């Protein structure tokens, strides 16, 4: 599998990362190198093998249903470029 410049630009757009044509061209090479590296894994036959989800044998930890957090609106909006009355303010997102 390899990617072309158009794919690089599309993926960048989906990730909201601005790339120039020159950067996309350079990134195409880097990404294809990574993909080629990862593709070596295809040489191993993994049919019938469960995907590994953790390096240690463990099960998912679960919480009890209690309110233990929140009530910190001041902290939540502390880094917001703009806020009003504890709302985040963002450029208008409807036309």
């Amino acid at each position, binding site marked *: 599998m390899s990617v072309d410049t158009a794919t690089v630009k599309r993926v960048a757009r989906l990730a909201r990362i601005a790339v120039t044509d020159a950067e996309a061209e350079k990134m195409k090479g880097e990404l294809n190198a990574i993909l080629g590296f990862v593709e070596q894994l295809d040489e191993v036959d993994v049919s019938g093998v469960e995907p590994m989800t953790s390096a240690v044998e463990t099960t998912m930890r679960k*919480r009890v249903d209690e309110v233990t957090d929140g009530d910190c609106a001041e902290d939540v909006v502390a880094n917001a470029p703009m806020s009003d009355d504890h709302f985040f303010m963002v450029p208008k997102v409807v036309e």
Partner: protein
Amino acid sequence: MTIVDTRIPDPKKFIKGATGDWEIVIGMEVHAQVTSRSKLFSGASTEFGQEPNSNVSLVDAAMPGMLPVINEECVKQAIRTGLGLKAEINNKSVFDRKNYFYPDLPQGYQISQFKQPIVGEGKILLDMSDDEQVEIGVERLHLEQDAGKSLHDQHPSMSFVDLNRSGVALMEIVSKPDLRSSDEARAYLTKLRTILRYLGTCDGNMEQGSMRADVNVSVRKPGGEFGTRCEIKNVNSIRFAGQAIEYEARRQIGILEDGGKIDQETRLFDPGKGETRSMRSKEEAHDYRYFPDPDLLPLEFDDTYVTELAKDLPELPDDKKARFMTDYGLSSYDADILVQEKASADFYEDVAKGRDAKLSANWVTNELFARLHKEGYDVTTSPVSADQLGGIIDLIKAGDISGKIAKDLFEIVWAEGGDPKQIVEARGMKQVTDLGAIEAMVAEIVDANPDKAAQAKEKPGLLGWFVGQVMKASQGKANPQAVNELLRKKIGID
């Protein structure tokens, strides 16, 4: 996914077009907010209507380094719902990231379940009439996070974002494209809401947004190939769902009959105008780039875990309805009305206990429910209790009051409260069954109207006038059957 058409085209449900009949095909995606105290992956509260960003933890705000930990109650609620939908429960499911950017989604992805949902195929039965029951397939149910809320009307150039809902657990319940009319779609939403409320897994409150539907609509020639569908997003009432489907089906038929083709797109329903309109004109096709969330291990439990939850499930609406029909001899229609809300069913059972089941059903569904609805009450806030209504029914059965007086008595109990039996005694509302007293009234009225009596002798149809007069004289308390018999005897009609 291969779509299997499970339905036989039914001409009753077709829509007439200029080129002949059309059939609507509908599938639903319902987002139901899980009833829980805290969020799916954080300990922040789920309470509705709080101050902006006060129900938000740093996990919900997607601050760097925060890790999600699942709320076990939400898992149980999803399993309970799956059991209520007679669905397959998957002992192993996986959480994935669904990636997209929007200001009310701080993580830049929603944690959802894509390839391996917690609940698989199930079904919902809809009683469309006494002799028509349709089975609607459920494709899957998965757990996911809700997004925050954007307000667009607070500022001329800025949107305000409140993350209180962000991270609240949702169950997305996806139906198969088995629905064939707006009536069926409404019945599906109503039934699903009833089941969720019985289970206590979602409050089903559509106004507050705890249940929302995305409706997929396409049209085709009856029994033909499935057409291209449009998705109507975020319909927030059952009535609107019906209106949106009717409008959308006719719009699509119009385009197809004019030789056009349907563009697969997302549309919005505008309740004010009663129409749907295209939502995103220039947006490219969604590419969510799902992948397993590396912060979360697969969700696993054994069969015992599921059986334990199954043990504590309440009696579900279908079972309750069947029991009401068998044990109380109710019609499918009456039983349906009574089981729609669990509280209504409980109220009915309190009234019917040791009493005439059908008479009780009539009083509960006709008199009480109609009145509650009209005055904006529900059965849990009813001014007339089950005991009081039962008392009124006892008086009817004992022959102490007529059906008409019973309605007056109901009004008094509604407005003033009190024990029906005492009210009847205290206000002299008891039916007069004393034949002597009725005979005296009959004699007086017949003697005062000799002409009419003569006419009635010829034409017994005129007897009704006399019955009316006697009832009036007795202030409605005379036993109508006795009045009738005594009048016939007095006037001399065989």
